[in-house]
Structure formats: C-alpha cells, structure tokens
C-alpha cells in the first residue's frame, strides 16, 4: 500500500522529455510553476492545460502512474478546497446551509486553487519521472555552481539529494515490513483517535530511524571505499551538454509563459461564475 507512492520516482522510458538536458527541465519546471500564478482567467487555465497535456503525451509516462502520484496530496487538497470554499465571502451567495455559506468567490477560488495545486504537483513530478536523480543533481549542481564561489556546498547538497531520492523506495519498503512485523505482534494501527494513532506510530518510527542510521553508516562506508572524496577532482560519466533540442525547449517554454500571461490577462473568458 505504502509502496504505491510514485511521487518523486523515476519512470524509465525513451521519450523526448527523458532525453532533454536536466538543466532545461529544471528551469522549465520553475518557469511553469511560476506561470501558474500569472493568470486568473479561465483562458489562462486552458492554455496551461493544453501545455500540460502535450507534455504528458511527450513524456510517455502513463496517466495512471501520474495520477497515483497525486494520492499523497489528496488530504492537503481537500483541506485547501474546503477552507477556500467556506471561508471566502465574496460575491453572491450560492448555497447557505446552517453555518456554511458558499459564495461565488469561494467556489471560484476553491476550484482554481485545486486545479493549480494539481497542476503544480503533476508538473514537478513530470520532471522527476523523466529525470534520473543523478541527472537531476548534476543539473542542479551545474545551475547552482556560481553559488559555490560564495562557499555554498553545492556539490554536497546535490549528492545528499540524490541519495535521499535513491533511498525513498528502500525506506518505504522497510516501513511496510516494520508495520507488518508490529501488526503481527499485535500493534493496533487502525483504531483510536488522531492522537492515539499518532502514538501508535512510535513503534514503527523508532526501528525505522534506527535502521535508517545504520544504512547511512553502511552507505558512507561504501562510498568511501569507492574513493569518494567530495566534488574535487571528480569527473562525470554523463557530463551535461546543451543540444539543439534543449535550446528549442527553452524557446517553447518561454513562448508558453508569455502566451499564458498575455491570454490569461488580456483575453479573459467567462463561463458562468468562473
């Protein structure tokens, strides 16, 4: 069950998106995330949707896989939607039951917020689906290199990130195993209120942490044994070179941002209350 979480995982496939330079993907993702906050009108959402759908198509990552990645944020999504729905008092009242009031403005913000959140997650997880953590960290390292002049440990941070990503599935598997082991010993993880349930998680978290530290120790030793000594004097197996398609991608993404901005602002589209 817990292993179903796909967010942040690489999905191996051969697509244009997989072949792009990670720097391009990082910068484009950032631009895409910003672009989602540049418009308020339904026309902007249309452009963003078309862009997102074509990217998903290009990535060759199955839609079901992407949707699975949304599971962990369902809770967050619900909370956001409910708060926006009931607490925004703006415009005409649509429904009024007991103490709950839904206004036009509330419904609008709730729907838009939900779409924005979903697009944010899909957009950023598409990057991790199509980029191996190593590429990702290489890209980050290259992009942030100027910061190392200011003594920011860029290489180290990048390395830590890639290792964290590598260990996500292993630790999830371990959590699963520990949960089963504790259930077999009579641990009750399902019943009780929130606080009780949180307390019941302790017998899972303690062994998980212990084993994580042990793994970290082993890994550090294995890395040292393979001559790891920081970023100095290190060569790359897959050095980054911009190619034609990378420049084209930059242009396309910038065009998209401009389009979303212009269309979202100056060509508003109104359907009912949206």
């Amino acid at each position, binding site marked *: 069950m817990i292993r179903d979480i796909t967010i942040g995982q690489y999905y191996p496939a051969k697509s244009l998106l997989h072949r792009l330079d990670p720097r391009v993907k990082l910068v484009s993702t950032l631009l895409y995330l910003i672009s989602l906050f540049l418009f308020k009108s339904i026309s902007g959402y249309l452009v963003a949707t078309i862009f997102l759908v074509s990217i998903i198509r290009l990535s060759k990552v199955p839609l079901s896989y992407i949707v699975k990645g949304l599971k962990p944020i369902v809770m967050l999504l619900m909370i956001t939607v409910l708060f926006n729905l009931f607490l925004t008092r703006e415009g005409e009242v649509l429904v009024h039951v007991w103490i709950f009031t839904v206004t036009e403005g509330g419904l609008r913000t709730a729907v838009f917020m939900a779409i924005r959140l979903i697009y944010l997650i899909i957009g950023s997880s598409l990057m991790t689906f199509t980029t191996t953590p190593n590429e990702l960290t290489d890209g980050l390292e290259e992009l942030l290199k100027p910061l190392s002049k200011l003594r920011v440990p860029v290489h180290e941070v990048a390395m830590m990130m890639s290792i964290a990503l590598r260990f996500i599935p292993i630790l999830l598997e371990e959590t699963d195993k520990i949960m089963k082991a504790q259930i077999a010993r009579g641990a009750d993880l399902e019943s009780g209120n929130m606080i009780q349930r949180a307390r019941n998680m302790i017998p899972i978290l303690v062994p998980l942490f212990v084993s994580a530290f042990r*793994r970290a120790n082993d890994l550090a030793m294995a890395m040292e044994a393979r001559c790891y000594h920081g970023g100095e004097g290190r060569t790359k197996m897959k050095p980054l070179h911009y190619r034609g398609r990378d420049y084209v991608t930059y242009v396309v993404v910038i065009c998209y941002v401009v389009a979303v901005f212009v269309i979202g602002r100056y060509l508003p589209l109104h359907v009912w209350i949206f």
Partner: protein
Amino acid sequence: MDIIKTEHLVYEYEKRDEEGNVIGVSRAIDGVDVDVTPGQFVAVLGHNGSGKSTFAKHLNAILVPTEGTVWVDGKNTRDPGELLPVRQTAGMVFQNPDNQIIGTVVEEDVGFGPENLGVPTEDIWKRVEESLKAVGMLEYRHHSPNKLSGGQKQRVAIAGVVAMEPKCIVLDEPTAMLDPSGRKEVLRTLKKLREKKKVTVILITHYMEEVIDADKIYVMDHGHVVMEGTPREIFSQVDTLKKYRLDVPQVTILADELKKRGLEIPDGILRKEELVEALCRLN
C-alpha cells in the same frame, strides 16, 4: 611483492557507557599476520565476532590499525596521502547489497567509482560496459537497482568495484544476505573474474562451502588467526573447526565420521565426488 601484507595488526576500540565515558578497551584484532601474493584467492573464515569483518575494513583503509602495519601493494594504509591509491588497489564489496549501491540506475552506480577517480568520460563508459559484461549484468544497465534480486544487486556492486580496476577485491560476507541461488550467482561471478581478469580475491565468509577453491585459508577466532593453510589442510581438522563454531561441509563431516569408524578414507575430503571415489576404492 605481496599485494597485501599485514604485520602484527592490532585493532582496539573503546567501549563506552551511556554517557560516553570510556569504560574499557576491546581488542577486535590481536596480532594478525597475513600475506597475499598477486592472483591468489584467499579466504578468511570465522564465526560472528571473530574479527574478520574488522580485518577486512583494514585492507581498504576504512579502519587504520591501532598497532602494526598494513601494506596494500607496498603502500602503507596509515599514510593519508596514499588513501585513494590504496582504496583503488583494494576494492571492497560489502554484505548488504542495498546499502552500497549509490546510483539509481545500474550503469550510473557502476560509474560512481571511476567518476571519483577522475577518469575521463569516454573511459568511464568503456569501463562501465566492460565491468557489467564481466559480471554478466550488461543487459540490466538501464534498470533501477531496486528491482533486481539480491544476487543481481551484489553482482552490480562487484561491477562497481571492478570498474575501478583494482588489483585486489575484498568481499566482506557478500553472500550472507542472499538466498542459495543468489549465493551461487555471486560465487560464479567471482570465479569468472579470477580467471579472466587475474584479480586477487579475498573472500571473508562463514560458509565453508564457498572456500573449497581457495589457494589459502585463514581461520580467525577472537581476533587471532588460529588456522592457516590450503583447504585440504584446514578441512582435515574437522574437530578443530567445530571448536571454532564453523559449519563444516556435510561431505567432509561424513568422511570424517566414516574414518573414525575405521574406514580407510583420506583426510580433508572437500567434494562429493572425492568421497564417492574414496568409497569405491575400498573394495
């Protein structure tokens, strides 16, 4: 020249109580002398807590001796300037395959070592391909290590070491966490590496079946080397081996028992076929 030589190796670690005060010193290794010539297959046997893993970590300069000296290809592991050359000469494979794979794709993991050594990019690719081929994992180069079996993961880990082109590979209980088929996979890979690449192999283990082919065996107990010799010499002393809590192969035990009951069977039977032959010759 010996590829690995230790002279009166001693390693002590401090025992601490809960507040971190030193309450005593414990000797994990106590005066070990070992020499390994290039191309040899040397096995170190020992029960849990015999100090064999601690010993292995000295060969790669992960641990530095408290007393005595370790030379790897003539380089003293104590010398900080020789750290990287030592680690490149004696590559190390650990017990848990999950905790030693750094990359998220098989080929990236194999490339990790050469990257650290500063090998030029084209050469890294060549080495990665060659070492994956050497362990028979080339077709898995684009796979995620998480989806591989234990034996396959361990072979990837071996490839990661082979890619650094070491003269010597030290394996610290590489089969302890594997199922029997995974164990066979790893042993077959090691045999192939020995034959094709002529690397020195030092295998730390407590499975005696794995060391039948060894050129030399050291048996460790409580930080000492208690037995030393060829497999035949070692395996002929069944009672002593049992005293050191080692699992003697069934054939050897059977042969030993038969001999005690008065049958004329030679000492140190290692393989089923040998026992069959010896029994047939009785009539």
